[in-house]
C-alpha cells in the first residue's frame, strides 16, 4: 500500500479526503487524515453568532462524520513535518511516512502579534469573531450592550474571508436597528486597505453601502498597538482611534507546525505554485486552502475549487503526467448585507469582482454586486450545501474555473 497523508481536517482537508477516496484505487492507496480535535466548525456561520441568528451549537458537528469510513482519521497535534524524509511526526509519537502529502492546516488569528490586543481587554470589550469562543463571547456581550462606539478593525492583510468584516458591519447596522438602539451606536470600520475592499470596483460599490448605512470608514490605518487601559487603537504613525467596543480581525498566520518544519514564509504560509497547487520546495507535497501563500482569497469556496484541481493533479502526479495549471484563483462569495438581503461576488486572479448576473443551473441567476433577497437565501441555504454536498466531495453545478458569462465590465 502507498500512503497519502492529509494534514488538517477542515474544509479543504475533508473535501480532499472524500474526493481522493472516491477516485483512487482502494487496494493501492491508504489515505490518512490528521486533525488536532474532533469538532468540525462551519466557519461561515461564525459571522451570524454574535447577532443571535445562529447559536453556538448550530455551527459544530463531529469531524469524523464527514470522513469516509475507509480513510483513517487520527486525532493528534502535529509535531513536525520532515519533507526531506517524506514523513510526519505526530504529538502522540506516531510517525507517518507518505508518498504524497497534502497540507491543509489553514490559517488562524494571532492577536498576540499586536501589542496590547490579547491582554486586559481581550474578551472583555475586545472580541474576535473568527473563533467559536470569540463569536460566542461577543453574542453574550452584545445582548447587554447599551450602545456606544463600536470599532471593527482589520489589523493586517491577508485575512481569511476578506468580505466577513463588511458583512459583520452590515449585520451590526441591522441588529442595532432591530434592538432600537441604532441611534446610540457609532459604527466605524478601521482598515489598512485604501478602501472598503481589496479590489477597486467592489471597493467603490461596497464603500457606497457603508455610506448609505452610516458606517464610517477609516482607511490606510496600520494598527501598531492597542491601549486597553484607555480603549484606543494606535497606528504605527501615531494616529489614534477610540472605541468602547472593539471587534478585531487580528493578524492571520498559518499553523505553527509550518514554522517548526521550516516550510513557511514570514506568516507561516507555504510557498505554493499558484496554478498547480504543488509546493514550490517539494515535489510530493501539495498545499490547499488557507495554508497556501497564494494571492487568492482565503475562503471555503476557494478551497472547494482548488480541491477539484488538486484531485486531478494528484492523479496526474501518480500516473507520472505533467501537472495542469488548473487553478485560476476563482472565488465566489455571498456577502450578507443585512435586513434579509445579500450580494454576491465572483472573481479570480485576473478578473476583479464585476457587476452583472451569475447564472446557476436550476436555481439562479443570482445578481452580482447588487443587493437581493435571493442572495441572502443563497447564503442561508449554503449551510445545508456545506454539510451535505460540499464536504462530501459531491459534484456541485459550479465550475472550478471562473466564467465571464453574465458579468459586465
Amino acid at each position, binding site marked *: 500500500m502507498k500512503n497519502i497523508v492529509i494534514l488538517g481536517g477542515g474544509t479543504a482537508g475533508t473535501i480532499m479526503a472524500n474526493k481522493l477516496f472516491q477516485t483512487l484505487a482502494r487496494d493501492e492507496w491508504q489515505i490518512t487524515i490528521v486533525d488536532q480535535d474532533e469538532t468540525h466548525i462551519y466557519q461561515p456561520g461564525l459571522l451570524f453568532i454574535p447577532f443571535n441568528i445562529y447559536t453556538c451549537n448550530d455551527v459544530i458537528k463531529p469531524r469524523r462524520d464527514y470522513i469516509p469510513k475507509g480513510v483513517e482519521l487520527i486525532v493528534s497535534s502535529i509535531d513536525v513535518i520532515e519533507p526531506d524524509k517524506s514523513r510526519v511526526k505526530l504529538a502522540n509519537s506516531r510517525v507517518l511516512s507518505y508518498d504524497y502529502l497534502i497540507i491543509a492546516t489553514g490559517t488562524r488569528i494571532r492577536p498576540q502579534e499586536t501589542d496590547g490586543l490579547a491582554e486586559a481587554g481581550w474578551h472583555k470589550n475586545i472580541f474576535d469573531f473568527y473563533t467559536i469562543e470569540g463569536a460566542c463571547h461577543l453574542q453574550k456581550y452584545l445582548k447587554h450592550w447599551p450602545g456606544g462606539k463600536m470599532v471593527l478593525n482589520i489589523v493586517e492583510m*491577508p*485575512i481569511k474571508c476578506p468580505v466577513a468584516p463588511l458583512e459583520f458591519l452590515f449585520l451590526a447596522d441591522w441588529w442595532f436597528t432591530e434592538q432600537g438602539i441604532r441611534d446610540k451606536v457609532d459604527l466605524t470600520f478601521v482598515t489598512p486597505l485604501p478602501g472598503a475592499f*481589496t*479590489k477597486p470596483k467592489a471597493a467603490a460599490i461596497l464603500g457606497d453601502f457603508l455610506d448609505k448605512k452610516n458606517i464610517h470608514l477609516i482607511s490606510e490605518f496600520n494598527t501598531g498597538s492597542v491601549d486597553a487601559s484607555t480603549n484606543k487603537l494606535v497606528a*504605527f*504613525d501615531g494616529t489614534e482611534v477610540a472605541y468602547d467596543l472593539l471587534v478585531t480581525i487580528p493578524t492571520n498566520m498559518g499553523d505553527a507546525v509550518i514554522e517548526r518544519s521550516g516550510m513557511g514564509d*514570514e506568516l507561516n504560509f507555504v510557498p505554493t505554485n499558484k496554478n498547480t497547487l504543488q509546493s514550490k520546495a517539494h515535489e510530493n507535497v501539495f498545499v490547499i486552502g488557507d495554508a497556501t501563500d497564494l*494571492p487568492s*482569497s482565503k475562503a471555503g469556496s476557494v478551497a472547494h475549487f482548488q480541491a477539484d484541481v488538486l484531485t486531478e493533479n494528484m492523479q496526474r502526479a501518480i500516473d507520472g503526467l505533467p501537472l495542469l495549471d488548473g487553478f485560476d484563483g476563482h*472565488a465566489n462569495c455571498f456577502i450578507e448585507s443585512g435586513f434579509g438581503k445579500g450580494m454576491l461576488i465572483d472573481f479570480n486572479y485576473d478578473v476583479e469582482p464585476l457587476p452583472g448576473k451569475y447564472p446557476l443551473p436550476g436555481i439562479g441567476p443570482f445578481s452580482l454586486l447588487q443587493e437581493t433577497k435571493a442572495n441572502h437565501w443563497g447564503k442561508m441555504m449554503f449551510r445545508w450545501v456545506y454539510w451535505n454536498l460540499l464536504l462530501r466531495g459531491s459534484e456541485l453545478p459550479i465550475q472550478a474555473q471562473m466564467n465571464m458569462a453574465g458579468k459586465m465590465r
Partner: protein
Amino acid sequence: MPVREIAGKQVDFDDEGFMTNPDQWDEEIAKVLADEEGIAQLTDGHWQVIHFIRNDYKEKGQSPTIRRMNKVGNIATKDLYEWFPKGPAKKAARIAGLGKPQGCV
C-alpha cells in the same frame, strides 16, 4: 503605458505610477521618485530599505510586505513609518522602482 523621462532616461510606469521594469531603475531615479512622495532627502535608513526590498524582489519576484521587511530584513516597523510615512510598503516599493506590493485579496 506612460513613459517618462527621468534623469535622462526613458522610464516605463503603470497607471498607478509604479515602474514596470526594475532594470531601468537607478539611484538618480530613486531621488526623483522620493521627492514626488514628499521625501526630500534619502538617508542611510531609506537606502537600507530600498536595497533590501530590491534584493528581496530579485529573490521572490514581488515587493515585500512590511512584516517581511521586519522579519527578514530586520527593519523596525516604527522606522519604516518614520522614513516612509503613511504607506511604507507602497512608498518604498515605488521609490525602489518595483511594482505595487500585492496587498492581498
